């Protein structure tokens, strides 16, 4: 197993623990934590801080019957929510987003495929499939983009990204990721704004493909 070198920044893990990340990012972070013991440790450290804040909170009086009401419910049967485990290359949170199905790939040309998992006012989340040696069209970001590698690897001028690594794209980053030789690169990409492409042709296709 290759070592994960590119992690989620602390501020994002804190926001994830507190629940303030937009949903597409939250799914990427949950997926990365599922693969990365290092970031799981950091995430749980933020829970510890949350716990200290909770423990130090001024108490509020509880209604008289709440405790007895809860105690009588302890023996009631309940159905646990479905748990989505890892399936193949896809970590649990991705499997859950796919509702347990295989991705439904749509061809984008040049062997590149994608499956848009969500796209709304909070941003978008999609799976990308990039054949070895193939470039993702050069693009910059009007917002933030998180890309988690699930299979294969890609490189751009900032370095190499392998399984479990997360690349963070912000408005300052203009890059042309190229999938490395070997397995096709499959990654999970989240944005909080539409991507901007530099050349005219991809821009024309942008509304069509929503990439």
């Amino acid at each position, binding site marked *: 197993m290759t070592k994960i070198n590119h992690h989620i920044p602390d501020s994002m893990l*804190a926001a994830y623990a507190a629940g*303030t990340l937009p949903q597409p990012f939250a799914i990427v972070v949950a997926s990365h934590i*599922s693969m990365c013991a290092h970031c*799981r440790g950091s995430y749980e450290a933020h829970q510890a801080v*949350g716990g200290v804040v*909770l423990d130090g909170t001024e108490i*509020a009086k509880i209604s008289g019957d709440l405790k007895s009401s*809860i105690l009588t419910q302890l023996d009631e049967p*309940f159905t646990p929510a479905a748990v989505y485990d890892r399936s193949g290359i896809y970590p649990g949170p991705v499997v859950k987003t796919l509702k347990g199905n295989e991705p439904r790939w749509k061809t984008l040309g040049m062997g590149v495929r994608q499956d848009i998992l969500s796209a709304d006012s909070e941003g978008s989340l999609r799976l990308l499939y990039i054949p070895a040696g193939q470039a993702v069209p050069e693009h910059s970001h009007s917002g933030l983009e998180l890309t988690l590698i699930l299979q294969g690897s890609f490189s751009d001028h900032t370095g190499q990204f392998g399984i479990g690594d997360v690349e963070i794209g912000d408005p300052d980053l203009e890059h042309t990721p190229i999938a490395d030789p070997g397995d096709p690169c499959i990654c999970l990409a989240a944005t909080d704004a539409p991507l901007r492409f530099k050349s005219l042709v991809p821009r024309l296709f942008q509304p069509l493909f929503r990439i």
Partner: protein
Amino acid sequence: MIAYEQNITRGKKPTFGARRYERNLVEETQKEVSDETVWMLAVRDKRDKAAFANLFDHFAPRLKGFIMKTGMPGEQAEEIVQDVMLTVWRKAAQFDPHRAQVSAWIYQITRNRQIDVIRKNNRPLPEELIEPPSLECDISQMLALDQEGQHLRQALAQLSDDQRLAVEKAYLGELTHQEISEQTGLPLGTIKSRIRLGLERLRLELKGLR
């Protein structure tokens, strides 16, 4: 304080060595591990309702105060308190004292529940790592984690009022990650290392964790 001998071996037939280990653990446990952890382990391993009632008495008023701080009215806050406390009972098997203090674990359950209620969609969560029942308790790890919790508490208390307020706001879910990144953080390095040791302990046992 409640002793919790059984969960030391958790269903495994104790060997001679384990039994001796166990006795030491119980003594140490009663001396040092926090009440909340002992109650939570009694809930997890013995489904102890009296211990659950103790957890309720400790956490429910704090939870209600915490939830109301996020602007939720009292009645709705109590509904969340109820959901959280029932989850504590039902998902007790997921509590791992080598990685989390009870307050940390309940904090996350609370935020998850609040977000599910507010956003009406399911919050994405990482895959769970559940401690295998065959794994023996490591009291020194539990105690060290408790100590890290104390250090955090002190570090928080030593912040300026403005900084402390910012930390509270961040963990109450009132700041974006950009806003959090602009804050000077708490010294989290040592507790992270400690929690990673708790994870390392599982890593030897679990498949699929990378």
